[in-house]
């Protein structure tokens, strides 16, 4: 806990106006930050000698449909040096761009492609933003809440392009 407070204290010190919210659940801290500053905050968490969040454990999308802005991007960071984890949440609207963190953690490349594929969240400065799980030519983003569970035309005959 103390270490995590160090992370949050350092963040508050460095970005006093950017901590929109914070919370703790079972000893894991979550910080909500604005999408304009996500790259600066991630760079700081990655490069600060006391924090050294060198591992991006996960990056995922979230659809809270009735809310505006609609999407959230969640960054799960791990500091191998301190054995600490922190979670960043960023709210993104539909058809809005959020900056890619691929320049900081290479593993973000495929995570962001997955979020784009399944939610349609658009990432700026991503080197290769195309579908990763579904095939080229698929229409729609199936993990969105307004997408039908079975999908349209799921039982129509399928003709693969060989």
């Amino acid at each position, binding site marked *: 806990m103390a270490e995590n407070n160090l992370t949050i204290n350092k963040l508050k010190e460095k970005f006093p106006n950017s901590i929109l919210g914070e919370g703790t659940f079972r000893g894991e801290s979550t910080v909500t930050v604005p999408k304009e500053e996500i790259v600066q905050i991630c760079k700081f968490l990655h490069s600060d000698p006391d924090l050294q969040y060198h591992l991006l454990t996960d990056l995922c999308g979230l659809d809270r449909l009735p809310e505006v802005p609609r999407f959230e991007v969640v960054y799960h960071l791990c500091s191998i040096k301190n054995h600490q984890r922190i979670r960043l949440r960023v709210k993104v609207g539909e058809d809005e761009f959020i900056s890619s963190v691929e320049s900081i953690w290479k593993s973000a490349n495929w995570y962001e492609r997955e979020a784009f594929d399944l939610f349609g969240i658009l990432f700026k400065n991503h080197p290769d933003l195309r579908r990763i*799980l*579904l*095939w080229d030519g698929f229409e729609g983003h*199936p993990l969105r809440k307004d997408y039908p*569970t*079975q*999908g*349209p*035309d*799921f*039982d129509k*005959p*399928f*003709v*693969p*392009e*060989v």
Partner: protein
Amino acid sequence: MGIETYLEKTPFLPAVDYIVNWGRKYSVWPVTFGLACCALEMMVTHISWDIGRFGSEAFRPTPRQADMMIVAGTVTKKMAPMIKRIYEQMPEPKWVIAFGACACSGGVFQTYSVVQGVDQIVPVDFYIPGCPPKPEALLAAWVKLQKKIEGETLADRKDVRGSLEMKG
């Protein structure tokens, strides 16, 4: 098309059929190819249930040496072009077994990403239901396939191109 066209006009066809089918039915070589959890049942049929008793112990790593494809597992729409290509790379004569509920009909995966039955993309000879089917079920299909091969004649294999095109 080939020698079959001339064999048909001679009285030797039944004798040639008998010999050729005898050779074919005891050397049905499957292509090494699994898609999901059903593939494990296919492997255990290979090893513990000793599919070599039926002359099929040689799982070929390339479709060009294989006679038979066991579609074991969920066929996703992303994987479907590769399955179709593997099927088309196999030389004639060739047979397909849909192994498991997913390969037969899509199974529980009634979603946008899963092909609702592999018979939409390749012609299937035998369907084995189950989730997953027991190895005995695969052996039963194997024996039935050997029976089916016994009944085939070389004259039926004249139109190889035609059998590649899907009907309907």
